[in-house]
């Protein structure tokens, strides 16, 4: 065989990547440009004269025709230039690289927690369908869904930081006055581990707990709903009947059902992960996290147009990449998705 089938499967999808990103890019450019919004006016503020607004418009290049702006934007993107912040003059790509690790440090454990809690609730809801434990799990999910994440964050802070005093309040990723470990990956707990600074690591983990708990619980409601539906379908399948009739223990039966729900569940989790890159913004803001999300909100409030466009593009691109990774992973996990193997038979 010339190319291994898996490699070919990946290559085909990677080859499609530029087109997908171009589509994301065009839509995000259009949406932020075509709608009846005048950023120049917003930047200038309500008191500004027309000349000031026109000046700002010229500096941002907003006076040029749409097509020209789009091609110019594309051209500089191809040159690897995401633009520079209107407020600070810093190149946007550098800022993204600097802030992204903090966000990933937050959202990856949060998603893991959401998966564990959500799947747990979903299993209880599906397995005990129509009985007490299921309605209890349904009730928990309803409450978790109805509490906005920022409110949950505040409640947790009041209980654990202000009230019990066992965890640090919303003061960022480290206690005030703690030195940041030498930057290797950009993720503070990981860097602290690499540098062998145990107290710093412990401090970073303690600061992680509340934001991770907030995001994890909020998103667990979504995972719980979807996994309850998926597992409900899986448990109604004939193979579950047969497995029980063959004497499989209930624990094995549930594991078998989870195996069936695994691929769609992973796909859904990927959707959530992609959404969380920007969706953690509110929680980052509450906990003064200083990651990608908080930077997003701050730039939005400052109406920093180049940064906003870059953020939308980056988040879109990240989404596409996460989806691609998930596509490949599902291909590996589900034998029914043909990725070239099986053809030899």
């Amino acid at each position: 065989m010339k190319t291994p089938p898996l490699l070919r499967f990946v290559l085909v999808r990677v080859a499609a990547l530029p087109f997908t990103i171009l589509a994301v890019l065009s839509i995000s450019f259009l949406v932020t440009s075509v709608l009846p919004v005048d950023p120049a006016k917003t930047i200038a503020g309500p008191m500004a004269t027309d000349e000031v607004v026109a000046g700002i418009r010229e500096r941002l290049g907003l006076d040029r025709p749409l097509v020209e702006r789009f091609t110019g934007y594309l051209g500089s993107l191809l040159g690897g230039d995401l633009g520079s912040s209107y407020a600070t003059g810093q190149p946007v790509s550098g800022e993204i690289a600097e802030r992204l690790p903090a966000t990933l440090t937050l959202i990856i454990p949060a998603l893991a927690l959401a998966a564990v809690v959500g799947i747990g609730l979903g299993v209880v809801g599906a397995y005990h369908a129509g009985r007490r434990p299921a309605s209890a799990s349904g009730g928990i999910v309803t409450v978790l869904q109805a509490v906005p994440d920022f409110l949950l964050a505040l409640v947790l802070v009041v209980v654990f930081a202000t009230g019990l005093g066992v965890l640090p309040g919303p003061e960022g990723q480290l206690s005030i006055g703690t030195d940041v470990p030498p930057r290797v990956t950009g993720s503070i707990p990981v860097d602290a581990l690499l540098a062998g600074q145990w107290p710093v690591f412990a401090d970073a983990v303690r600061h992680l707990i509340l934001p991770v708990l907030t995001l994890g619980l909020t998103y667990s409601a979504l995972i719980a709903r979807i996994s309850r539906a998926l597992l409900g379908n899986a448990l109604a399948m004939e193979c579950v009947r047969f497995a029980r009739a063959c004497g499989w223990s209930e624990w094995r039966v549930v594991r078998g059902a989870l195996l069936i729900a695994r691929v769609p569940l992973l796909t859904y989790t990927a959707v959530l992960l992609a959404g969380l890159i920007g969706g953690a913004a509110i929680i980052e803001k509450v906990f003064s996290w200083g990651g990608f999300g908080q930077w997003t909100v701050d730039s939005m409030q400052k109406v920093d147009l180049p940064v906003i466009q870059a953020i939308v593009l980056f988040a879109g691109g990240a989404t596409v990449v996460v989806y691609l990774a998930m596509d490949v992973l599902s291909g590996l996990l589900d034998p029914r998705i043909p990725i070239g193997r099986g053809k030899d038979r």
Partner: protein
Amino acid sequence: MTSVTHRPTGRSSSLARARRRARIQLWGSVAVIATLVLYPYLFGWTLEPFSTDAARVLEPPSAQHWFGTDRVGADLLSRTLWAGRTDLPLTLAATLLALVIGAPFGAWFGYSARLGERMMRLIDAFQALPLLILILALVALSGGKAYMIVVAIVLYAAPSFVRVVRSEVLAVSTARYVEAARAYGVSTPRILIRHVLPNVTEIILAQAALIAASAFLAISSLSFLGVGVAPPTPTWGGMIADSVSALISGIWWPTLFPGLAVFVNVVCFNLIANAIRSTGRSGELS
């Protein structure tokens, strides 16, 4: 025990009871939301959301100020009720607009299946965009204009309506009676309105309530972040954001009441969705 002694007509009675409970749920929730929307319009004169008083800053709930006062000394009960004027109409307007825009497209894509298949791929791609960031960007660029909030939420919600209406229409339009109507030469829009629409309304309304819940959460998040409706107009999200510093020092009432308002509204929207689904025909069948 008692259930054995009086056992009316079995299955139908328990169904009737379930339907009655669902109806109470439905109209109770509608009443709560309607009250919260209408109160500031009808009884606005009893509220003083904008009058501040440095002499009564952060007072706990009392007979005079039932919900206490906030950090500029405004009455929290007034502000909490007044916020219903902003957050809820925006939610309802955005949901309604998304429905009005999304539903016809959904019906169209569901009815002409081949076109719909292709258009749904486009919608998939659109929904893969980081929508929260997009909404944030739009609202921030417009400087928090109310109409832009609505536009952004519509952008986020309309595709969901297209999706659900399409799948419902797809299911109904293969039914016998629709095929019969088609065979008689009834025109497409007429079939959709006369035969398909009545059979999908409930599911679409249930979906609308769910979408309203998430639109409401999104709007609250926007105002919490301070990119939504600008202060001093009270919004629940804005009031919560405003209360953070007081909350850290243990003063709970400026956070509790707007927080409760958000919670109650989301629960009500969800209950409406559940109730519609369980009273509908689909609920009877299952």
